[in-house]
């Protein structure tokens, strides 16, 4: 009798195991705790949503994807160890990390193992290291900074700029890139102010910015620090244009800084407020499922499985080396891969080119003021 009761269970298990064994496991090695937890959880939700959709539609070349989340604790050393462990299983691709420091610590491992690594990092130096297996989901600073520098010259018409950056790989890369671009356009950098990740008090930094007496302020911090800076700037009556790149204009900054965020302007690579129906539909879907508005990291996470899908379908087979080769020079269009939301092209270094936006925070909302074309048509 006992065995009879177990029979349906045994049959179910015997049927389920082969199905699970056919799933393609993709390690998703991201910042789920530590300073980057916000970023990592957005990516996690975005990538999970995409994989659910892809699997529901039959998977990729008939195979379903199973994401394996591994926490880097926002630590480059742990990220490197996690990637090393993941590579032992010879995965078809790796998603993450998102923090540039962690990407820099891991990209040689994936290059040596010839496994494509789809990342969230934006530091300029990531794609300059010659790896043929690294692929961005968003602009590198080498692409976004020329756009914002043009806007500072032509839109804001500033002759001098004070730069405020966060002292990590992301911030230092951004500071170096924007200074290079500003100077190339004859714009003086009146101050270059370093701040710490997780910094709470920005009184001193705002005093230094005021002392620099620049025409505009370029703020390149993570979301929470951006909000704190804007709050302090408002408190000290710093009445210069507040400019930034993506993070400054994110929903999180608006939620946290409230009125202090109004008036901030800049360049946005990815936003769910983009005037593109597919992007807005994604934003609604994400918000319905997770009960909050996705930021650009949620979008980056969402793109990663669709990049993989397009590359595998182009390669015609599940093979890590072939997937990487397929991604180079690939333009993923929204008609063939609707989940990619915005058409994007990946070059030989893994750098992405797609349209982007100029935006401003007005009455607590991000308003897109202009759509900028792809750099290369």
């Amino acid at each position, binding site marked *: 009798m006992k065995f009879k009761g177990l029979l349906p269970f045994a049959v179910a298990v015997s049927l389920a195991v082969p199905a699970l064994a056919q799933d393609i496991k993709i390690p998703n090695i991201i910042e789920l*705790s530590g300073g980057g937890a*916000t970023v990592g*959880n957005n990516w996690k939700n975005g990538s999970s949503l995409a994989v659910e959709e892809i699997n529901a539609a039959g998977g990729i070349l008939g195979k379903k994807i199973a994401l394996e989340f591994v926490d880097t604790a926002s630590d480059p050393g742990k990220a490197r160890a996690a990637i090393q462990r993941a590579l032992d299983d010879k995965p078809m691709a790796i998603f993450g990390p998102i923090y540039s420091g962690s990407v820099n610590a891991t990209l040689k491992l994936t290059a040596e193992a010839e496994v494509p690594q789809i990342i969230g990092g934006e530091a300029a130096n990531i794609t300059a290291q010659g790896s043929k297996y690294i692929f961005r989901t968003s602009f590198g600073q080498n692409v976004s900074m020329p756009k914002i520098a043009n806007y500072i010259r032509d839109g804001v018409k500033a002759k001098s700029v004070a730069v405020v950056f966060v002292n990590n790989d992301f911030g230092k890369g951004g500071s170096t890139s924007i200074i290079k671009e500003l100077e190339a356009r004859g714009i003086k950098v009146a101050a270059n102010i370093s701040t*710490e990740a997780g910094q709470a008090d920005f*009184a001193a*930094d705002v005093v230094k910015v005021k002392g620099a007496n620049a025409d505009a302020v370029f703020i390149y911090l993570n979301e929470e620090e951006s909000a704190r800076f804007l709050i302090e700037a408002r408190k000290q009556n710093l009445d210069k244009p507040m400019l930034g790149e993506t993070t400054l204009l994110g929903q999180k900054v608006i939620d*946290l800084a409230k009125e202090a965020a109004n008036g901030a302007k800049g360049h946005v690579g990815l936003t769910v407020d983009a005037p593109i129906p597919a992007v807005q539909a994604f934003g609604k879907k994400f918000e319905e499922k997770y009960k909050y508005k996705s930021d650009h990291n949620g979008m980056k996470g969402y793109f990663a499985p669709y990049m993989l899908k397009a590359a595998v379908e182009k390669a015609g087979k599940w093979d890590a080396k072939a997937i990487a080769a397929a991604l180079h020079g690939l333009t993923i269009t929204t008609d063939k891969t609707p989940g990619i939301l915005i058409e994007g092209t990946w070059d030989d270094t893994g750098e992405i080119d797609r349209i982007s936006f100029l935006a401003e925070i007005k009455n607590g909302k991000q308003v897109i003021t202009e759509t900028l074309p792809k750099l290369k048509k």
Partner: protein
Amino acid sequence: MADFLQLLIAGIATGAIYALAAIGFTLLWQTSQTINFAQGEFVMLPAFFALAAMKWGGAPFWLACLVAVAMSLLILGVAFKGLIVDPLIKHGAMPLVISTIGLSIFLKDGVKDAYSAEAQPFPAIFPDRLIEILGVKVSLAQIGVLIIAFGVIFVLQWFLGGTRIGRQMQATAQNPTVARILGVPVERMILYTFLINAALAAMASLLISPIYLAKFSSGETLGMAAFVAAIVGGFNQVRGAIAGGIIVGVLDNMAAVYVSTAYRQAVPLVLLVLIILFRPQGLLGRKEERAV
């Protein structure tokens, strides 16, 4: 000059909150030789008690603040002492230190999983209005923080020195064996110390969260700053912790402007090293007492 005053006021306001947390270090050390490396998380947690009371309990802000204080007394005071300190203290300082480090990780990850990994805006106790004093823009929130923080510190000093229970607590801190012989209920005094620490942590949390936002990881910076403040001021003196907190708060701001923003965090640590080298009992600590 206006900038200097601006930095000074901001530094004192931040330092006053560091002081509230630093006092907790000194109180626990004096009465139970406990160094609580979860002190920063003790300051982070009450804000989430309040947020949870508002989000899931529908409580108005004033009630949520009371819930936060009550939960802090219960969990960070009574439960912390009963479940962690009492069973471990008999095995020496090291197991306790390790367990408070573990507790800090547990609290951080617990808040992240139970509430959110995202920073949360926290309602302000004081209106977010700016006033100008001698050319310096000061927010009412900053003034409120200063008044409450110094008010709490003043009441605490009065309580410890001017009441029978306070003097019994001091006697327990100075020599628990003699205090017990003299009839002081030492165990109860130690419990009071833990409760005061929990109340101070709750107060610091409610004051700092509207300014710095509530986030699971915010205790890391706070805990470190308060620890440095307690050592700089004197681990064995409440007034030392107060002075240490303000020194660290002001020094951090001044260093950012007059030394370098890149090395602002190093300056208080340099002071810490100098204090340990040349005055290990701290600036206001007493040499005849225990030095850390």
